[in-house]
């Protein structure tokens, strides 16, 4: 029993953080937002060079063979730096889906190798999301047709862009015709794979939300320590202190929830879906509160385009309902904890294998 990360894992997280701090400063992000595609090939290439696209690709396909736990650290950094890129959709969710496809899918290994090298973008259209992120520039998109899995190249889809309040989001309605040429798994094979993709997507969002929460807290702490009113830093007022203390508490207690969820998914725990929905809700609530208290302690400055807080607030409001909105995840929690055989009470903390 050891519920901590290894020194290596923590060093990895630090390295990612330092890398993104340099390569994805807020000014750079704002420039990327303004582009048509909304994505920076340069940033994506750099991330690939760092090996980030190869994280969870099996070693035999040229990847690092890491699991959901490492992604729970990685996605926090993606959130913290507000990375305007669906990297996790390609390198985590889609890669995870492709990894478990039957061997009969002849492109499988090639796709994984290309993802590891950073040579492809893969979008994924799970029914829980009404729109598909980044389908406009994905080389191919994984799509669901009555439970089947289809891998549809860019040339066979039409996309209609749907602008979001979060300028870093690129959401597409995807129009396409299913055919046997694009089908890579039938509905029976597809069902558990789609379920796992949903869990992985939700976990990816949870991690990002937690990173966003921490970023908004850090921005707020910096702001209130220097901003003065009534002759004192506003951070010395008890009401401001308590707003931010509450955010810190939410983050502190959402973190182990995220890690348990990642562990459960990685180890095939029977309660993984419950744990992931709990993480989505807990991290969402931490981020939501960080946004609300963040703008409150920023005062009118927080309401401007110029101050960076807005970038992270809007991302929070968008991601909160991504890969399942709060109601979706609460419904999964309800179903699990009110079931007759629910894993309740002391001694059930790590669920059932």
């Amino acid at each position, binding site marked *: 029993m050891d519920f901590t990360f290894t020194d290596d894992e923590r060093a990895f997280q630090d390295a990612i953080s330092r890398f993104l701090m340099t390569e994805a400063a807020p000014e750079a992000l704002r420039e990327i937002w303004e582009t048509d595609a909304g994505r920076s090939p340069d940033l994506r290439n750099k991330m690939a060079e760092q090996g980030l696209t190869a994280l969870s690709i099996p070693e035999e396909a040229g990847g690092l063979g890491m699991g959901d736990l490492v992604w729970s650290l990685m996605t926090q950094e993606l959130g913290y730096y507000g990375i305007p890129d669906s990297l996790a959709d390609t390198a985590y969710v889609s890669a995870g889906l492709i990894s478990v496809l039957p061997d009969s899918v002849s492109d499988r290994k090639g796709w994984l190798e290309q993802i590891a090298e950073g040579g492809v973008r893969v979008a994924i259209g799970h029914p829980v999301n009404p*729109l598909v992120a980044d389908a406009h520039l994905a080389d191919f998109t994984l799509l669901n047709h009555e439970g089947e899995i289809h891998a549809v190249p860019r040339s066979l889809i039409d996309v209609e862009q*749907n*602008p979001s*309040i979060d300028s870093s989001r690129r959401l597409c309605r995807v129009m396409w015709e299913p055919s046997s040429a694009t089908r890579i798994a039938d509905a029976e094979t597809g069902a558990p794979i789609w379920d796992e993709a949903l869990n992985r997507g939700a976990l990816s969002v949870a991690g990002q939300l937690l990173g966003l929460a921490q970023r908004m807290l850090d921005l707020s702490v910096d702001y209130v320590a220097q901003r003065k009113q009534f002759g004192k830093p506003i951070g010395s007022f008890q009401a401001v202190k308590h707003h931010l203390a509450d955010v810190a508490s939410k983050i502190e207690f959402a973190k182990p929830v995220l890690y348990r969820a990642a562990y459960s998914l990685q180890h095939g725990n029977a309660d993984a879906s419950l744990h992931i929905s709990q993480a989505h809700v807990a991290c969402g609530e931490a981020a939501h509160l960080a946004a609300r208290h963040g703008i409150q302690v920023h005062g009118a400055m*927080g309401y401007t385009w110029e101050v960076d807080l807005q970038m992270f607030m809007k991302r929070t409001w968008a991601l909160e309902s991504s890969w399942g909105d709060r*109601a979706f995840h609460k419904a999964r929690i309800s179903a699990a904890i009110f079931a007759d055989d629910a894993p309740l009470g002391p001694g059930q903390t790590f669920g059932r294998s």
Partner: protein
Amino acid sequence: MDLNYTPRQQAFREEVRGWLKENLPAEKLASYDTREGFEQHREWERKLFKARLSMVMWPEELGGRGCDLTEWLIFEEEYYAADAPMRVNQNGQLLLGPTLMEFGTEEQKKRFLPRMAASDDMWAQAWSEPNAGSDMAAISSKAIRDGDHYIINGQKTWSTRAIYADWAFGLFRSDADSKRHHGLSFLMVPLDAEGVTIRPIKALNGKDAFAEIFFDNVRVPVENRIGEEGSGWHVAMATAGFERGLLLRSPARFQQPVRKLIELYKANQEAADRDPSIRDAVMDVWSGAESYALSAYQSVGRLARGEKIGAESSINKIIWSELDLKIHETAMRILGATGELLSSAPQSTDDHGWLEGFLFAQAGPIYAGANEIQRNIIAERVLGLPKA
């Protein structure tokens, strides 16, 4: 206690309802945070004014129709129930207007109020400064007397729609050596005066909703001062009271979105009920909006009996701003995954403007005095607790 409307009040309600039905713009106006929308809203205000419906409580000679507060509430109810356009000249009509009524000279009233009612003059407030947010007494912009003029230098900020407006009003330090609440004067400044520079501030939603105003040796005649020289704080406090209090946020403004929220909930009930807090929140905001409306009627009755509404207006400010936030938070929860889409997105399911309202609601607990300050005021002035 008598909770029946008089025949006169009912007739007035019918008149307003009928007029709005006849005259409402066929198409939704563009956002008044854009130049185009601003002018569309000015046109609408002129139309209201011509029907003497822009400022129903003002005396007839100033462009109103001398209604009492109950009739004003009725007007507001019909106005919001009809989904009529947002009022673009509120800073003038609801903040400066009552201030002029109370502290202005007869000449000032005649000069400014009818044009304000007609929206011939559009007003911006010049309240905050970069280092004076909720601490309004930290003002450093100066207005130094030079004969029958003041010479203004300094900077104001968070001035809503100032880039489109004609005039601004605010507090300036007329005694250069004074501190805090002392030595301030309340001035009205034409925004086309020489030395005025306005720079837009882009809001959260990407629109130029606010501006900074820079004053570089701007000359303003003394007759543009409201109240005595140096007693601007006293005047401004009254203005702030109007802002927090009844007039700025009439109850209908919340009852109408609650009605729509209930429709939204019912249309999406099965999905929404997966999160039981949604139904609970819908019930709670229904009660909150009702209670806010009831409190308004109660205040109107108290004012009619000659009572004053004092620091309780701070409670009002907290209630409506938190209510507005909860209404829009709940709508966003119901919209779920499509909630983030702009209204221009083809797949948007937001036909009421919930997202825009959600963003705007974020500002409620901050502007007009942050809610933390309002809670201090309640504790100190209503409950009598000691200052820190």
